[in-house]
């Protein structure tokens, strides 16, 4: 039997990028199954240390499979999708451009064009899947009526063991995600500051994530300095060990994103037993299930009160930890890997 060859195409590849991490996890599986192929991206972060080549170097034979991780506009991608023998689309979602027009017009344009291109690609592929039902729903609306769900391949075994007990010291609140408008780090800082003033003057907030742009990063830093001087740390670039340490030392994870197709950091927080307080928006309720404290309130004081409960109520913390573990069972890596295998081989 001929050896399977699967080539992956990413819209962008970066060091601290969830989609890149996902593509690399897929590649490890492919190698384990004895499959060949190569990985390519339309845009590559110069600092990326991974075997991902430029899209212009992609070449494949008619019998090869092409797996597109779609997250933004790439010129000519729909034509590429039509050329491959078997093409799979894994849709990671595209943030609505409304979040970017005021802060990065280039990104906004890519998002706007990407949502248009999605319909073309969805019609050109053999298999279309979203990493969540939320994303699959968008795919169906875009023209892929049979779109299914191929969950994130979340390999818990690659993460260090969580600590048995809650961390010592003053309350530490954490959010992990690119500093970007739709992630609403401005709201995170405000909710944290309300919590600090009302309940925990010695609390600390850690934001982990690369900024959308230096200008946007500066705005978030300025806001933190203005509202909570000295209480907010912004870590733009952390390696895996440093990131895991952030989770281990956190008393609560606060996610106030207005748009997420999946939100992998929620699963990481569940793994480390960190109680999650989150805005019930977009794909977040689906990913978190019943394992997070979800609210859709406009009043940030509600989230401040939820932080107080999450960081201070041991009984609730234990219950959320149990639910987080149960939630992670739904994202069992072996089950996802089998779905992936079936999708590729047809």
């Amino acid at each position: 039997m001929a050896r399977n060859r699967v080539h992956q195409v990413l819209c962008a590849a970066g060091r601290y990028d969830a989609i890149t991490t996902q593509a690399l996890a897929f590649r490890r599986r492919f190698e384990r199954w004895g499959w060949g192929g190569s990985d390519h991206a339309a845009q590559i972060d110069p600092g990326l240390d991974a075997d991902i080549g430029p899209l212009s170097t992609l070449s494949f034979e008619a019998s090869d499979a092409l797996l597109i991780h779609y997250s933004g506009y790439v010129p000519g991608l729909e034509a590429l999708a039509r050329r491959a023998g078997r093409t799979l689309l894994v849709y990671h979602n595209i943030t609505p451009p409304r979040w970017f027009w005021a802060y990065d017009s280039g990104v906004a344009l890519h998002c706007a064009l990407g949502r248009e291109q999605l319909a073309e690609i969805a019609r050109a592929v053999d298999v279309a899947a979203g990493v969540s039902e939320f994303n699959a729903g968008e795919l169906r609306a875009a023209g892929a009526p049979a779109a299914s769900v191929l969950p994130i391949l979340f390999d818990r075994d690659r993460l260090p063991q969580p600590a048995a007990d809650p961390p010592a010291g003053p309350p530490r609140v954490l959010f992990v995600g690119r500093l970007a408008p739709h992630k609403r780090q401005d709201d995170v800082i405000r909710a944290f500051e309300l919590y600090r003033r009302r309940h925990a003057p010695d609390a600390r907030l850690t934001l982990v994530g690369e900024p959308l742009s230096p200008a946007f990063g500066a705005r978030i830093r300025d806001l933190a300095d203005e509202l909570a001087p000295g209480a907010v740390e912004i870590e733009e670039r952390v390696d895996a060990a440093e990131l895991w340490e952030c989770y281990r030392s956190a008393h609560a994870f606060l996610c106030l994103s207005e748009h997420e197709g999946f939100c992998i950091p929620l699963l990481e927080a569940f793994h480390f037993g960190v109680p999650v307080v989150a805005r019930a928006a977009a794909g977040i309720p689906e990913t978190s299930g019943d394992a997070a404290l979800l609210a859709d309130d406009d009043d940030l004081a509600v989230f401040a009160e939820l932080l107080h409960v999450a960081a201070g109520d041991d009984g609730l913390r234990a219950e959320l930890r149990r639910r987080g573990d149960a939630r992670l069972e739904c994202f069992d890596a072996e089950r996802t890997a089998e779905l992936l295998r079936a999708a590729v081989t047809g």
Partner: protein
Amino acid sequence: MASPDPAQRAVERARERARSGRAEGAYGDELGGFEVEPIDRADRAQLLRWALISPDAAGIYTTRRLGRPIVLVKRALLRLLRQYHHDVLGQQSRFNAQVVDRLLDLERRVAELERRAGGDPPA
């Protein structure tokens, strides 16, 4: 009736505490500063501001550990080509501003025609 689910109960309790806290004067501080504002459709003033393009040199940055010298070279090139870029940006901004002006004028005229015809403007 309170929810039997402990997570849902915690959310209800947080709402109640936020309400009572506000009633007692807590949470009264105004937290100003930068706030993200999504834009569904730019208004006229925003369109006019965007017509005048003015790239920020802070957009030249590095994500590599040893990228600093490259950034310095790029910034030096920008300085050397400042006169040329000034002309290019001026030409593009002039075109943008004229197009926006025509567009706004068309909007005004369409609105006036709709008013005269007595019909409702389209949503």
